């Protein structure tokens, strides 16, 4: 019969894919999800969706799911299925043994932005009360850690200043290093809607992306800069603003530190940042830089949206500061239609940043070195806390290679595929004595694990996510977790096994604890979110239902601070051996490391990473569309097929990193951001050569071994 199954139940939840955080209705029939439909009342998506959230949900019932806890002594051994209790006891026992042998600081944990706020909070609590150190990091280390750093430094809050709807009030939209229509599709649709209504779109991106040019949405200025010259170009834009006196002096005098502003003006106002000097170095027309600066400054309401094209550089944090400076200088902050907004990659990257999963910070971006903050948590947890920062994830790997770091509890992460310098990460993991991985599937990283804890997908648990606009929304359990425990219960089990006893009956109690200890969340509760649908932090007595637009009256740090943003060229340079610059990104139908989307029918659109190369560069190398090529850098090499594309300029090649076997992170550089160690994924000097049959066979063997 052609009559469709009618769902018997519908539950509102939040999509776990990207940082847009769309509200969905999970419709079930007989306990099975039959479809996901976008929730009209979802304040992030207003009833819209993308191919991932709307359709790509089958991953949760894929045969590859890990269905039981497993342990093994050596990574050469086969897995042995065990009970949860045995797994917890074994894992905790190993961590304690390592600490006794190598010291308290020899173990750590890393949390996942695909987990809920409550789960991320429990992971940092695990490190602090279970491991008794600050060796806790989160996966935004490799994506948006510079956002938190750079925006905190300038504006005082490491988060988007606006809500998504705000873009409909913008006259000018500046997109820097982001491709919303692919990476944040539902927000991208909103952006296009704003452009169709007359907003002027400005794009800074090395590629001619879909955002630059698509039907009825075209950038009026596109600065296709050479990868790695972000700070140079942004300083040049600031130069135009300063030298042409396009800044909003009244705003700066009222809201910002004037002395720092003058210091900043003297720096960016220098002739070394004039478009005539910068243009040739960045591969841009000087007048295009001027045009973009003038349009942005003219507003009346200009807004900035940016992505990993800003952060994933050795000057990632500096680049973010450039954006904060620019917005303050032009008075484009503190009302609807303006602002500075990071587009977050994963569903809960903002939550990952907010909830204290940092080696140097507690929840709400408060330093562990601050005794008063420590006292709040010591009082809540009834335990003495370490007052010194711990190791960051890359430093944990460095320390593991050096032999001083031996145990790691990884929640829902696949650093072997997604972290920089794959060989270094593998060496680090090999050097550890206990690697605990909590994940939905076996991954590249679980090959190095000793304990495998079956994670629960976002369809299998209760909690909250915080999206890229600081919006905290409800995640609801639609189906039972495959191995019986939700992720937060697993971490609670680990904490208890470490010897610190605690008990929560429901994740709402964890959010209550976050509210008790964190000023920006002080008004937050499941009850409130249930009542109003979703809540943007800060949520407190002054803003009992949350805050849509930040910085309307003052900045959290008081006066806005102009930071000096000297351009320091990356050490990664092209030369005769590696004459091309490789930059990376993502595509609509696949998601990050692809662990979920690769297990859905989304492969129909994109079933492998490909390398985009300009026609010039392809011709020089005798390459044609579809050819297999070897991509080699100073760090490693891999093989990909090419697409000859008009979207990249000569000298630039581009790929995605959705597929494990392509090992793009074996090629990318191991340089990273000066402030946060966020990897420089966006700039790697490479050479591309056609694969001969012999090498191809060799490579395939290597990959499958």
């Amino acid at each position, binding site marked *: 019969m052609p009559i469709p199954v009618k769902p018997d139940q519908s539950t509102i939840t939040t999509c776990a894919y990207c940082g847009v955080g769309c509200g969905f209705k999970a419709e079930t029939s007989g306990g099975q999800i039959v479809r996901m439909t976008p929730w009209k009342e979802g304040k992030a998506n207003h009833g819209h969706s993308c191919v991932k959230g709307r359709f790509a949900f089958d991953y949760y019932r894929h045969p590859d799911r890990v269905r039981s806890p497993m342990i093994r002594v050596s990574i050469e051994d086969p897995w042995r299925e065990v009970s949860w209790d045995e797994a917890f006891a074994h894992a905790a026992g190993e961590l304690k043994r390592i600490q006794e042998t190598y010291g308290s600081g020899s173990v750590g944990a890393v949390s996942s932005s695909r987990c809920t706020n409550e789960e991320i909070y429990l992971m940092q609590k695990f490190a602090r009360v279970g491991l008794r150190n600050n060796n806790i990091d989160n996966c935004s280390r490799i994506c948006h850690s510079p956002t938190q750093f750079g925006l905190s430094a300038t504006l005082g809050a490491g988060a988007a200043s606006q809500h998504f709807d705000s873009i409909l009030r913008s006259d000018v939209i500046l997109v820097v290093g982001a491709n919303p229509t692919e990476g944040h599709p539902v927000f991208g649709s909103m952006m296009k809607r704003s452009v169709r209504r007359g907003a002027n779109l400005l794009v800074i991106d090395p590629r001619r992306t879909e955002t630059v040019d698509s039907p*009825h949405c075209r950038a009026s200025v596109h600065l296709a800069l050479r990868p790695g010259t972000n700070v140079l170009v942004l300083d040049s834009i600031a130069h135009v603003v300063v030298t042409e006196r396009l800044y909003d002096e009244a705003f700066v005098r009222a809201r910002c530190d004037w002395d720092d502003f003058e210091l900043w003006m003297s720096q960016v106002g220098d002739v070394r940042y004039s478009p005539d000097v910068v243009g040739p170095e960045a591969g841009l027309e000087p007048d295009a830089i001027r045009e973009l600066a003038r349009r942005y400054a003219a507003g009346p309401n200009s807004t900035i949206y940016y992505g990993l094209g800003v952060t994933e550089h050795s000057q990632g944090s500096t680049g973010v500061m450039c954006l904060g400076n620019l917005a303050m200088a032009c008075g484009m902050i503190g009302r609807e239609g303006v602002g500075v907004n990071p587009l977050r990659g994963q569903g809960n990257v903002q939550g990952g940043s907010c909830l204290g999963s940092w080696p140097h910070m507690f929840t709400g971006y408060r330093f562990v070195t601050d005794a008063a903050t420590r006292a709040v948590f010591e009082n809540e947890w009834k335990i003495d806390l370490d007052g010194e920062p711990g190791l960051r994830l890359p430093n944990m790997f460095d320390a593991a290679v050096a032999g001083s770091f031996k145990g790691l509890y990884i929640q829902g992460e696949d650093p072997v595929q997604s972290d920089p310098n794959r060989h270094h990460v593998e060496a680090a993991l090999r050097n550890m004595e206990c690697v605990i991985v909590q994940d939905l599937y076996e991954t590249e990283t679980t090959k190095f694990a000793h304990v495998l804890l079956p994670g629960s997908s976002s369809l299998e648990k209760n909690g909250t996510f915080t999206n890229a606009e600081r919006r905290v929304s409800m995640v609801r359990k639609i189906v039972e977790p495959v191995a019986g425990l939700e992720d937060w219960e697993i971490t609670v089990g680990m904490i208890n096994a470490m010897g610190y006893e605690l008990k929560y009956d429901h994740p709402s109690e964890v959010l209550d604890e976050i509210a008790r200890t964190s000023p920006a969340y002080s008004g937050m509760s499941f009850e409130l979110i249930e009542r109003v649908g979703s809540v943007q932090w800060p949520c407190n007595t002054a803003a009992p239902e949350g805050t849509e637009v930040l910085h309307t009256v003052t900045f959290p740090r008081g006066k806005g601070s102009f930071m000096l943003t000297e351009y320091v060229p990356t050490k990664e340079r092209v030369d005769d051996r590696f004459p091309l610059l490789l930059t990376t990104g993502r595509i609509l*139908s696949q998601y990050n490391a692809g662990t979920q989307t690769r297990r859905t029918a989304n492969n129909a659109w994109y079933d492998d990473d490909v390398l985009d190369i300009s026609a010039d560069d392809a011709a020089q190398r005798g390459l044609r569309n579809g050819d297999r090529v070897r991509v080699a850098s100073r760090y490693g090499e891999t093989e990909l097929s090419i697409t000859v594309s008009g979207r990249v300029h000569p000298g630039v090649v581009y790929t995605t990193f959705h597929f494990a076997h392509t090992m793009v992170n074996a090629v990318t550089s191991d340089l990273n951001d000066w402030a946060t160690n966020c990897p420089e994924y966006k700039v790697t000097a490479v050479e591309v050569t056609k694969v001969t049959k012999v090498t191809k066979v060799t490579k395939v063997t290597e990959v499958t071994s």
Partner: protein
Amino acid sequence: MWSELRALRDGIDLGTPPRDGEPVTLSVDGIPVTVAAGSSVLLAAGIAGCTVPKLCASDTLEAFGSCRVCLVEIEGRRGYPASCTTPVDEGMQVRTTSDMLAKLRRGVIELYLSDFPEGDIDGGWSQLNTTLDQVGVHRLADDHPYRSGANHQGGVLDMSNPYFVFDQAKCIVCSRCVRACEEIQGTFALTIDGRGFGSTVVAGQNESFLESDCVSCGACVQACPSDALIEKSLFPGGYERADSSQA
């Protein structure tokens, strides 16, 4: 503020986007109702509790006025304007039911039914089913003169997208999918090809959905009132077209 986005409610379709505007008071079937200026008569009627049947209208899309089911009568105006495309005016007096309206709606619905697979109506739960219930017509009589006319029951069945089907036999050419692709998603992958009775929804340059620029966001599936675009996951045994023989 932001009404067009934020005043949308789950499970309720006001027919046209809610507006931010000065209050305007009118009466619908004698019931006074106050809505924002710029709102449609259809929306006002809904708020007054007078349900007007509709097919091409949705509160997530701008009014289009193609289905001609939401016709009403307005005191002092000629004819039977579509309530979706008629903005409210202060003091306007609207009638949503009359013998003539019932006759016209029935007449329009019969035209739809004359090109729709009968087997897909009983037991269905689409917007079309709701509208048929409201108008009170569910099938053409066996001897109805419209029977055995030209139709699209052998039209395209596009299964290329991994997640949804497009079955032209069930397409009522309301353009909701086309408009959703433009207004909501902004991809402009869908269009109406052909003219008049030959008008059909096509993806791209008359390609399959998978080959076209369609990004599979699902906005078209969400918008479709007649299940011509529908999730494959709702057909556990696989999608099969209803018996295409029109009596």
